[in-house]
């Protein structure tokens, strides 16, 4: 049993590392975020407006996800992020998922995800790819680019090709949160 568990864990870790190494997208670990941008906020305090999430979170620890498409893995990740944000409210952990697609379909599916998953803290937003890809170096191959940052500097960058974001990989992202949270 122990061997099976170990093998499963190893496979998850290898899989996660391989994904991270495969596709390079977004500012890398140690780099500063490129700066302000104004996505359309689908949910959150500025829902229905273009509002700068980079500005909103400022120097606070933040999980920022850029996604080119909706997927089950992403929905699970959003749920896990939400739980983590609620659990780390005292640390002012911020979070947002920004879809690189402004079609009405994405907006309505994001609203549904927020409603179904009772997502209150994590802001769901969308932006035209052309308005952010270049500044944030978001590559086409990366379906999901996840940045864990604090003080506007990236501490963890994880990217996934389409279909690669599994629940286990999402769990590993959450496991990296202590890297941006203040030490107790």
């Amino acid at each position, binding site marked *: 049993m122990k061997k099976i568990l170990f093998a499963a864990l190893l496979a998850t870790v290898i899989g996660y590392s391989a994904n991270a190494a495969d596709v390079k997208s977004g500012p890398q670990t140690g780099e500063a975020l490129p700066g302000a941008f104004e996505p359309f906020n689908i949910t959150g305090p500025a829902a229905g407006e*273009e509002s700068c999430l980079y500005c909103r979170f400022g120097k606070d620890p933040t999980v920022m996800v850029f996604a080119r498409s909706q997927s089950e893995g992403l929905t699970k990740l959003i749920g896990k992020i939400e739980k983590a944000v609620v659990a780390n409210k005292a640390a002012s952990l911020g979070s947002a998922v920004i879809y690189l697609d402004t079609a009405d379909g994405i907006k309505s599916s994001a609203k549904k995800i927020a409603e179904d998953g009772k997502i209150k803290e994590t802001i769901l937003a969308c932006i035209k790819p052309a308005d952010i890809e270049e500044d944030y170096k978001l590559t086409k191959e990366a379906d999901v680019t996840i940045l864990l940052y604090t003080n506007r500097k990236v501490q963890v960058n994880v990217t996934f090709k389409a279909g690669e974001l599994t629940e286990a990989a999402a769990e590993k992202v959450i496991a990296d949160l202590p890297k941006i949270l203040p030490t107790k």
Partner: protein
Amino acid sequence: MRLARRGFWIVAIVLFGALVGCGDSASETPKQVPGVELTEITIAGFEQVIAEQKGKVVYVDVWFLGCPPCVENFPHVVELHRKHAADGLVVMSVDINDKELKKKEKVVNFLMKHEAQFPNYILTDDKRKVIEWQKKNGAEFTPGVILFDRTGERIPVPEDAPNDEIEAVLTKLLATK
């Protein structure tokens, strides 16, 4: 000031049509406030405006409407103007990110709502130039504050400086004749 404005399109914010057509509900349309203007300007033009203020203390609020902390801080900027203008403080706002017509109209509404009766500018240079200018002036992050003493020298303001600390510095600068 006159020089800097020449050649640039002065946004005629008193145009009722712009206010009505902003898309907000009628109840959100602010009343007309005399002395509230939004002027398009280049970085070079703005630097000239600053150079013309020698002898006064200048407080520049670097902001834009889509920046929640900027919007939250704006009433404090207006308050600074009200409290210290008579002592020689010149408050200015510089919008770095709302060049599009649709956004500009919303900015005008916002300025009216807050009765921002001081020079309000909107930079027209491209994004990269604006970022460079922000960095050069220690206002990379918004809301940013750029402060000049009466000799025209820039006084560094730490990013996280609380408003009361900045006001204390301002008060000292104003006391220096």
